[in-house]
């Protein structure tokens, strides 16, 4: 790796901002997935399911 020279702070800051935004996007998607899966599971546990799901369960 070459030395970053007199503008090292700008280079590191640019990569840090990009990394933070990417990590935030990944965490947002994962948290949202967990939330939606939990909500769907809660509804299904109370017997509230889509007609297609009910047909599939009855056929099985």
């Amino acid at each position: 790796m070459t030395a970053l020279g007199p503008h090292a702070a700008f280079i590191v800051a640019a990569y840090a901002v990009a990394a933070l935004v990417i990590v935030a996007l990944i965490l947002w998607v994962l948290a949202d997935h967990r939330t939606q899966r939990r909500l769907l599971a809660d509804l299904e546990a109370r017997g509230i399911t889509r007609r297609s799901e009910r047909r599939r369960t009855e056929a099985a």
Partner: protein
Amino acid sequence: MPLIDLANPTRFLALTQRLLPGLAVATALAFAAGLYLAWFVAPDDYQQGATVKIMFVHVPAAWLGMGIWALMSLSALGTLVWRHPLADVAAKTAAPIGAALTFVCLVTGALWGRPMWGTYWVWDARLTSVLVLFLMYLGVLALWRTVEDPARAGRAAAILTLVGAVNLPIIKFSVDWWNTLHQPASVLRLDGPALHSSIMTPLLVMALAFALLFVTLHVSAMRNEIMRRRVRTLRLMQAGAA
């Protein structure tokens, strides 16, 4: 599986569940290769020195910021013309990722501009048109949050997206049409790229990594949105039965 089967949300969920682990691994590998090339192989620029490393995140973020709006415009046509059941799901879930990457483009551009131009920001055509793109992303996101019914919100957002697509050629050609502090295109040029392969290769690998990241996040977010709509439908059914 025929492509048309992807129009079915249930089949989309099943197919993407199998694809996602591979996409995530490919994204991680592409970033590892791209960052290695950018930090350990690519030489410093003869004028800009090591600050050229900022290009390897700035340019892919800029390409994707524009590309995602183009994808949203195609999805908008899918919503308005063909009423494809996944079109507005695709548009809605692409918007926050596009906004985030356009934000990365603006911030890294400012951080590159300060040492090279002596300023973080100028109101020139390229910078201003990209800022407009970012504001349009925020506008679409606000519209989605304002209208509760997803179908109505989807149609309104689709119209706004298609109107906003006018900004894409303005961004691309702003450096040719006006005098700007921003440099003209170096890669997507009629007479071929102006970059040496030692800089070009890391840039393309990083662009591939960003593109794979977008596909992975977008597919995941689409799956979440499909589940969110199922939750909404089930709650409406529950309320109707009560």
